[in-house]
């Protein structure tokens, strides 16, 4: 049943989100053309203007994807469509999983498309060889100056990114689930719930990471990035994962027992 839910969730979201990503691709092509045109004439300001617009569009698409997915969670489960979704013979947890998995995949698609777009733009201006030269220089810098290898930095970054995506969506889901239990102003209460959850989670993660602060203070003489940085990051991920589990159970409880459809 979970696979069927995921299938229909993809079907329902692919049209709007597909169009958004096609728009992203068109933006990239137009950006490349605009920059190339500006090189020939005395219109250099065009290239920086294009770059600003380009970056704004990248951000706008990412935000639009996020908003669409979060609004869909609310609309599909807690408004009129909720009468259908919540009377399907499936576990409430499957409803959450299906939304989460599809949102996660779309976030990855958006990320990959964004990176691909930037790479296209960069490669249109430089040769592949000089691109790799720059890449090697960054790697060397990271190793010499910060003391981490770029691969472990990448690993930590990607792991952190994946955890953050799940964390972000579940925090939105929980806020929405809490907000919909109110009789009126459900959306407003959802936003309020988000602020409260945000503050609570910040307090929890600050307290959880406090020991590292003391540890760093005691060892100021030989503060090493490898001994502090990696464990610090991994601990913060562990706290996020614990909060993810907590948020999941809260959302699941509300959908199972405290549904309040209008």
């Amino acid at each position: 049943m979970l696979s069927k839910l995921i299938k229909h969730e993809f079907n329902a979201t692919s049209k709007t989100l597909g169009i958004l990503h096609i728009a992203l691709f068109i933006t990239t092509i137009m950006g490349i053309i605009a920059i190339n045109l500006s090189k020939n004439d005395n219109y250099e300001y065009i290239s920086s203007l294009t770059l600003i617009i380009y970056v704004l569009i990248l951000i706008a698409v990412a935000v639009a994807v996020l908003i669409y997915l979060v609004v869909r969670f609310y609309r599909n489960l807690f408004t009129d469509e909720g009468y259908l979704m919540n009377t399907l013979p499936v576990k409430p947890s499957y409803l959450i999983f299906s939304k989460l998995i599809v949102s996660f995949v779309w976030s990855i698609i958006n990320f990959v498309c964004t990176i691909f777009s930037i790479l296209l733009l960069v490669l249109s201006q430089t040769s592949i060889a000089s691109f790799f030269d720059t890449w090697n220089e960054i790697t060397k810098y990271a190793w010499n100056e910060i003391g981490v290898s770029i691969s472990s930095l990448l690993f930590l970054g990607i792991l952190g990114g994946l955890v953050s995506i799940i964390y972000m969506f579940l925090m939105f889901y929980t806020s929405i689930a809490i907000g919909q239990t109110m009789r009126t102003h459900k959306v407003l209460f959802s936003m309020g719930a988000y602020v409260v959850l945000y503050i609570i989670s910040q307090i929890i993660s600050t307290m959880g990471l406090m020991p590292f602060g003391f540890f760093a203070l005691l060892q100021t003489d030989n503060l090493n990035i490898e001994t502090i940085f990696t464990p610090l990051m991994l601990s913060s991920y562990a706290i996020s994962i614990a909060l993810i589990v907590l948020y999941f159970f809260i959302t699941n409880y509300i959908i199972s027992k405290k549904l309040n459809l209008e």
Partner: protein
Amino acid sequence: MSNILECQSLVKKYGLKTALSGIDLKIEPGHITGLLGPNGSGKSTLIKLINGLLVPDSGSIKINGLTPGIETKKIVSYLPERTYLDNASKVKDIIVFFEDFYDNFNKEKAYDMLSHLNINPNDRLKTMSKGTKEKVQLILVMSRDAELYCLDEPIAGVDPAARDYILNTIISNYNENASIIISTHLISDIENILDDIVFIADGKVKLKSTVDDIRFKEGKSVDALFREVFKC
């Protein structure tokens, strides 16, 4: 044979407001029951409890002997008073959706009823009138071979001609062991198809009777009795 629906001292509150205050009700299989009562009497709350959209505060509700959950959702076909379909989708996509999730969904029956009412399966919901959407929804709900149909205001939004077709569809499309619960204000329209009636007021069952009893013992139509019992 166990009752299709059994409620014992069922209580549901919304905050301080009591929607249902101690409902005791048994509905046997094979009956068409009219759930009748004024606005805000608790009809929709009871139907939501049957479908697991709400959880009772106290008392119990059993469908075929089971607490509402995945197993009861398989055998209960529910028509809410809302249009619950995604406006952007086509009728045929929604049919695929129902087929995927309900083992007892009969696709041929659905297409047959659609063509009878001249509804094109390739049309998107958003191009349809409110009445047509309600028809689509009723067709989907009645195309399931369910044991209990819960119809919340099924005919409120459609014209009288379609009303007759729909009522006909309802009685001709369910097997005789299945049960139907219809909640409505439009009593005179559905009076003829009902076996039993349950009057609900202020979250309590005020009267449960067979339609024949009302006609022969009281010498009244259900509509007249309703007007008498709920006189403002």
